């Protein structure tokens, strides 16, 4: 009798070991596997949606950041100022020479827009330019922009003097030019030019994707143009970027520095990366709704379970379970149900993120806060959903629970 009573004859209290709480709480789930899976599914979908949305937006952002890093954030552009009182907006012809005299500037190159159009051949209507700009470019342009050639070659000192053209990626598509090794020609400003190369896209200078670039030599000789830069690209070490930026306008046009506009193209991408897309919030909202519905589903299933298992509750009370033990059993069951759903949801969300990010060639990022948050949400939902059914089960009088056979 020592186990059940102390020396004063008092009976030891009813006790359910911690490990047994888990066993008792999971017994109902183990015997009703399909119902368990279905009721956990609601939470799974909600959590998966939330983790997936956060993971995908984080992955796409990481991809953008990687791009920015690869492109470099130390590129500046100088262009004529636009807007009220800024005049026609022309940069001085010696702008490149002046900028290259600024100490820290490493590379500088300019582009001069030409007032001619590029056509596939001489039969095409002159006005159907396809939105392609013809421009004269420094041979340093490609190096300054960290660009590369998709097909053929870039202009060099020699080829820039002749009727050769390099097309931006969009221009090539619009002109229907796929390969350049057969001496394909296009019709620019009344002259035939040979396409020697097609460029890869420039994320930091998207205007160039829609350009046809010729050498400055041939531009001056054929089209009688002055060489006032339309835009100047320059690279400087990141640490001196602000200093260079500060003196740039005054250097380019000491008389009217306000007519010079300076920008940092990577800022635009940075802003894009920082922006939360409206869709992210929408899907997060949908995920939250799914989660709520899942929680209600669990509460519903638990209420039914309590009604169905009145006899079991009565039996357990007869075996010595206290009200608290019964409450704990059903609360554990709801928690296990939602935790199961949460785990499946987190795995599913992370899996979808990984799959889609791989498919898009993005870096796979599953934010830990989404995983922890999703899991915590599932646990909280389970606790809230299980509380009422558990209280009901605990309140049930043993005689009533046993009677309803």
């Amino acid at each position: 009798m020592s186990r059940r009573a102390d020396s004063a004859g008092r009976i030891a209290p009813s006790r359910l070991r911690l490990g047994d709480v888990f066993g008792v709480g999971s017994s109902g789930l183990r015997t009703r596997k399909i119902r368990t899976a279905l009721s956990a599914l609601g939470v799974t979908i909600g959590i998966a949606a939330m983790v997936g949305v956060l993971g995908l937006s984080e992955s796409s952002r990481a991809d953008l950041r990687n791009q920015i890093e690869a492109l470099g954030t130390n590129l500046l552009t100088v262009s004529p100022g636009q807007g009220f009182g800024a005049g026609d907006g022309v940069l001085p012809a010696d702008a490149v020479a002046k900028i290259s005299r600024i100490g820290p500037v490493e590379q500088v190159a300019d582009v001069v827009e030409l007032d001619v159009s590029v056509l596939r051949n001489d039969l095409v209507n002159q006005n159907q330019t396809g939105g392609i700009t013809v421009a004269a470019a420094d041979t340093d342009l490609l190096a300054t922009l960290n660009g590369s050639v998709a097909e053929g070659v870039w202009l060099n000192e020699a080829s820039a003097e002749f009727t050769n053209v390099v097309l931006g990626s969009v221009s090539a598509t619009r002109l229907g030019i796929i390969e350049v090794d057969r001496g394909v020609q296009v019709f620019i400003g009344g002259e035939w030019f040979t396409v020697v190369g097609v460029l890869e896209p420039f994320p930091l200078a998207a205007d160039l994707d829609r350009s046809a670039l010729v050498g400055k030599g041939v531009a001056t000789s054929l089209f009688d143009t002055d060489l006032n830069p339309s835009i100047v690209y320059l690279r400087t070490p990141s640490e001196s970027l602000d200093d260079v930026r500060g003196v740039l306008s005054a250097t380019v046009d000491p008389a009217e520095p306000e007519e010079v506009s300076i920008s940092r193209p990577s800022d635009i991408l940075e802003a894009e990366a920082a922006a939360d897309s409206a869709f992210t919030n929408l899907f997060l909202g949908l995920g939250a709704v799914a989660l709520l519905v899942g929680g209600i589903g669990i509460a519903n299933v638990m209420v039914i379970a309590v009604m169905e298992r009145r006899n079991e509750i009565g039996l357990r009370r007869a075996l010595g379970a206290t009200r608290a033990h019964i409450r704990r059993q059903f609360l554990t069951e709801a928690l296990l149900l939602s935790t199961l759903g949460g785990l499946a949801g987190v795995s599913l969300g992370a899996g979808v993120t990984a799959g889609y990010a791989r498919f898009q060639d993005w870096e796979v990022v599953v934010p830990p806060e989404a995983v922890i948050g999703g899991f915590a949400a599932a646990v909280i939902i389970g606790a809230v959903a299980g509380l009422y059914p558990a209280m009901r089960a605990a309140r049930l009088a043993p005689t009533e629970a046993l009677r309803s056979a």
Partner: protein
Amino acid sequence: MKAALELQGIVKEYPGHPPVAALAGVDLRVEHGELAAIVGPSGSGKSTMLHVMGTLDRPTRGSVFIDGRDLSKMSDRRLSAVRSHLIGFVFQQFFLIDGMSTLDNVANGLLYSGTPQRTRRQMAAQALIRVGLGQRMFHLPNQLSGGERQRVAIARAVVHRPAIVLADEPTGNLDTKSSTSILDLLRDLNAQGATIVVITHDLEVADTLPRQIFVRDGRIERDTGRLEIAGADR
């Protein structure tokens, strides 16, 4: 000498105008080692008596003693402790948990006493051997016959060696052959020292047990008394 179970002036009324008295003053003493039948037609109050004896329900007036302990002032938690340590229940519907092995169903009899699982299973195995189901430990309830299920339920009721076993119509759902073997089992367990009270409406069942307590309208009508005590005091 402490009785296994003692009822003193038990009245149980259910609210109403006027209140319905299910038990109208019951005095009863069951000694350790007894095997007694409480007999009565339905509505006689015998089920209420079982609930009050088993601490599943509180009397309106009067005192219940189990193993000498007065239960009238105990809290719900303490009463749960009394059930987990001192009382074993056998029900007409067996109340085994589906999907749980015979062994674990029996081990559930010790679940709320804080006994570690290993010990619970060891004791459950011994109890199953005692009721003649040593070969059925890992069967599920739905793989057993009705008689076997009731044996499992009896093993669960005695696994913690309670001061008293309360059996509510233990043969009510069984055919004659199974009923006979269950009654034989109860007699065997009683011979080994268990105190057992069987509640039944069946006079034939009651006739096979050493003591019969006849109940009608919430009162004890007749008590054949302790004709024979099978086991020694525990």
